[in-house]
């Protein structure tokens, strides 16, 4: 019984990956919108873009980690 609950929890935690995807999409989309308005400033901001994507993605990775822990470690 507990194992089944853990699997359900893992599935729910996987939703977090989708949320992280929205976040990453937001970052990249806004970067692109800004870059098209001012292409000359775009190159200098790619580092910031990747940092932003990394932060947004980290939380999705946490959700993935929770799912893994529920699947394998609980």
């Amino acid at each position, binding site marked *: 019984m507990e*194992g089944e609950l853990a*699997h359900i929890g893992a599935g729910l935690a996987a939703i977090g990956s989708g949320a992280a995807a929205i976040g990453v999409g937001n970052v990249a989309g806004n970067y692109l919108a800004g870059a098209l308005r001012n292409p000359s400033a775009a190159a200098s901001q790619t*580092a910031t873009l*990747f*940092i932003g*994507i*990394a*932060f947004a*993605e*980290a939380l999705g*990775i*946490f959700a*993935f*980690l929770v799912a*893994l822990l529920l*699947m*394998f470690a609980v």
Partner: protein
Amino acid sequence: MADKAEEGGLVFHPMDQFIIQPIFGGDVTWYTPTNAALWMGLSIVAIIVLLVLGSRHRAIVPSRSQSIAELAYGFIYKMVEDICGKEGLRYFPYIMTLFMFIVCANFLGLIPTSFTPTSHFAVTVVLALAVFLTVTVLGFVKNGAGFLSLFWVSSAPLALRPILAIIEIISYFVRPVSHSIRLAGNVMAGHAVIKVFAGFAAIAAVSPVAVLGITAMYGLEVLVSFIQAYVFTILTCVYLKDALHPHH
């Protein structure tokens, strides 16, 4: 879990590829040569081939391998210079070490049946903790108690500053956690998903889709391997900048 999967005709062992196995048998003690040790050693070999053998001709007009070595050097050098400023260049060899190790381990891990050291929390936690401790110690050595001004946001209204300080402190101590788990999690997730697709490939009806899925995931993983190494390095640079110039 595995029992049920086998009843349905599907066998998923997505995590088996991460098992640490001794090469010559026996138990895993702290010095046993394992597959992890083997692939770390191979990443050293890759670095030697790329950076040392590649640049051995010292040509003014570079050959292909020398161009790659110069490209890697210039890439990280410029990153450190842009983010940390001129003082940060003293720490360039450390950052280059981290980057080259992660990028080589990631790419070698993409070879089928290989082992990826960076998919293990043991590895990434050590890397992230090394960065975290170095940066913290460096911050205090360089700035003394002034390093604490990193947490005291002087541009915010006075009433908000204690709350912001708490948030800043929490986020500071979460840094090594997210720093390490991001790398291991990304690498592990990609490899595990490829393995799951490989499990589906055993069913004839869906195997073309599964093979396509493996191909697509593999392409994504090539990208992720580089981007995660890049992100790890650039975050190291950002943390280093905080230690060198804690004032916002």
